[in-house]
């Protein structure tokens, strides 16, 4: 545990520091679009390389910790790299990189080229830094800071351009996020008062010595705070309200990453801080309700972005279900499912961005003929949509299969009910995406109610069409866009890359499931984590 691997993992703080420095540089370069773009992409590529290196080291199932500034663990800040956190880092950075390339190819910020565009790149990098910090954090307060970094960046990205709809959505989002952060801060204060430490490994040792009642209060406080961030049922109302109004790439990256950071924090809470099954029943009930309520909301929507936002919250329920099982199989399936969910949701939101660009709207009542206009787009929607619905052989099916097996292993009546609910939810998900498919892709554009001129004009001029065909019309809203191609190759390409990553999750499901199993074993037995942080102090210090 001392030599080569340690030196690699001790670069872990760079996963946070690099994007922050990159953000500063990108902000300085705000007048030079090309170099700003280059800096952002370069930083993300380097970060991804570093994180892949870390993942390759912990792939076999080991846990390392890095103490910042050489302060001994219970006092100093430590960062912990284990299979789960490294895996989440790699997946999240792949997704952020793909979305970034998509956004740059779009000419970003749909139209308002000169205004707030220069802020997009720095804010985006800060978001990535916050996400990385949350995944690596080895103490609760650092986790809080990670959340705040990513939330503050997300406020900026969500209200980009400051239009009426975005300000309205942004207000709800900011207030809800701040409220959840305050709850988290209060929980940290209470935990510090009760246990005298905020280091997570130290807490794992000290919390069991506290009385049951106090433990329960602290546990619930943390779960509520993280539940808001992860959009778990009674606390999920804000998500479908705020996500759909943001620009497509922003919604895509939010959908992929932000809620999963909340889920990650819940997993750490359940496995590391409060192991055992104190709140197992509560979590199971909440998971079932999250799945059902979310998907019923999705079926009612006519806007694809809103529909996807509802499926997003609904499928968070699957993850909570996996966590609530408390066995290794359930946890392994959850880890696999998180990766699947990040990739698939993001690629679907990117596809909606393409649909919006091509058809002028994301309302399925006003769309049609898309399969004829652009077969590529249809394929790009179809694969992740079937994947989301859990059709074999895609990764969604494999993840759900793992969860169902985990549930069957627990075997309580409630677990069986949840298995039923999860299958029902999968079916309803399929119904929701099939509605989109039938209307937006298969139906003739002429049958749509009030179709966008862009859609109708383009029906016959399928490939290579540009906004010019409608730009001649007086008062056209398309003439000022940065990139005039209707479906720019870069945007289609990056969506295709993410769809392929989703397929790779299916193709390499064998090794990935083995890996998730090892990672799950690591986090279920919290001694690994505690030893890595507290036990190996002397080895880590240099």
């Amino acid at each position, binding site marked *: 545990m001392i030599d080569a691997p340690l030196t690699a993992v001790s670069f872990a703080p760079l996963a946070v520091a690099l994007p922050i420095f990159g953000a500063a540089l990108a902000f300085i370069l705000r007048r030079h679009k090309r170099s700003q773009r280059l800096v952002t992409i370069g930083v993300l590529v380097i970060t991804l390389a570093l994180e892949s290196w870390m993942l390759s080291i912990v792939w076999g199932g080991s846990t390392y910790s890095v103490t910042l500034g050489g302060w001994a663990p219970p006092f100093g800040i430590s960062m912990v790299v284990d299979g789960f956190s490294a895996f989440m880092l790699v997946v999240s950075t792949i997704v952020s990189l793909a979305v970034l390339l998509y956004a740059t190819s779009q000419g970003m910020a749909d139209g308002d080229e000169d205004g707030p565009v220069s802020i997009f790149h720095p804010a985006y990098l800060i978001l990535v830094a916050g996400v990385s910090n949350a995944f690596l954090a080895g103490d609760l*307060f650092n986790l809080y*800071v990670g959340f*705040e970094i990513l939330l*503050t960046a997300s*406020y*900026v990205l969500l*209200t980009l351009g*400051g*239009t*009426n709809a975005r*300000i*309205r*959505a*942004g*207000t*709800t989002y*900011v*207030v809800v996020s*701040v*409220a959840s*952060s*305050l709850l988290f*801060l*209060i929980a*940290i*204060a*209470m935990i*510090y*008062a009760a246990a005298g430490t*905020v280091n997570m490994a130290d807490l794992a040792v000290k919390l069991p010595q506290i009385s049951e009642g106090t433990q329960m209060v602290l546990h619930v406080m943390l779960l509520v705070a993280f539940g808001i961030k992860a959009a778990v049922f009674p606390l999920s109302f804000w998500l479908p*309200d705020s996500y*759909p109004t943001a620009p497509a790439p922003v919604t895509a990256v939010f959908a992929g990453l932000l809620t999963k950071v909340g889920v990650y924090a819940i997993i750490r809470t359940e496995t590391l801080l409060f192991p055992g099954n104190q709140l197992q029943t509560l979590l199971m009930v909440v998971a079932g309700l999250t799945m059902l309520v979310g998907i019923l909301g999705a079926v*009612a*929507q*006519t*806007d694809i972005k*809103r529909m996807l936002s509802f499926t997003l919250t609904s499928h968070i329920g699957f993850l909570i279900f996996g966590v609530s099982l408390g066995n290794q199989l359930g946890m392994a399936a959850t880890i696999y499912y998180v990766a699947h969910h990040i990739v698939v949701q993001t690629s679907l939101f990117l596809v909606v961005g393409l649909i919006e660009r091509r058809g002028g709207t994301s309302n399925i009542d006003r769309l049609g003929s898309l399969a004829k206009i652009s077969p590529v787009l249809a394929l790009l929607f179809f694969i992740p949509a079937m994947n989301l619905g859990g059709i074999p052989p895609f990764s969604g099916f494999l993840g759900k299969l793992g969860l169902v097996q985990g549930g069957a292993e627990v075997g309580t009546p409630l677990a069986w009910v949840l298995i039923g609910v999860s299958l029902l939810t999968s079916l309803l998900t399929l119904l929701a995406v099939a*509605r989109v498919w*039938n*209307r937006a892709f298969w*139906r003739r554009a002429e049958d749509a109610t009030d179709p966008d001129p862009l859609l109708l004009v383009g029906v016959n001029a399928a490939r290579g069409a540009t906004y010019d065909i409608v730009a001649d019309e007086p008062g056209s809203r398309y003439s000022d866009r940065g990139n005039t191609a209707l479906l720019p190759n870069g945007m289609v390409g990056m969506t295709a890359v993410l769809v392929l990553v989703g397929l790779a999750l299916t193709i390499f499901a064998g090794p990935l499931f083995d890996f998730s199993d090892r990672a799950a074993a690591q986090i279920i037995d919290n001694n690994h984590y505690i030893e890595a942080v507290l036990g190996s102090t002397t080895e880590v210090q240099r």
Partner: protein
Amino acid sequence: MSTNITLLVVMGVLFAVGIYLLLERSLTRVLLGIVLLGNGANLLLLSTGGRLGKAPLYDAGLAAEEYSDPLPQALILTAIVITFAVTAFMLGIIYRSWVISHADVVADDDEDLRVGQQSPFDFEEDSPIPEDTTEFDGEETLPGSDTKTKTETKTDPGEARA
């Protein structure tokens, strides 16, 4: 661990008033609520430090128990900075909202209201589908074929349902 009763009472009042304001529709009040809640949380953090002691600067002659706990203070400083940033951003949003719509309230989502009011009958999905007996376009119009009459006899789902 000893706690200061005045701090506790002030904290309670801050939380109560803050939550009340947070539930208002007016954005400025919501912001004030957030500020109060933030301060309440900071006081809570401060009181977790326990008994007051000497400033946590190293002094060779002082026993470890004599110092006050420096960690809560560090946490509060961080929390203050974060609350400050968020408050500034909220003010920006409120101002923008006022510039755009001259309103200082949280508005309802139009799409939400529309989805709530939509009729359970969906033309595309719920209207009766005329039964198709042939998969070939235009076959029924071929002269001399009797497919057309067949289709006509079968396509009245309303009757069939009744």
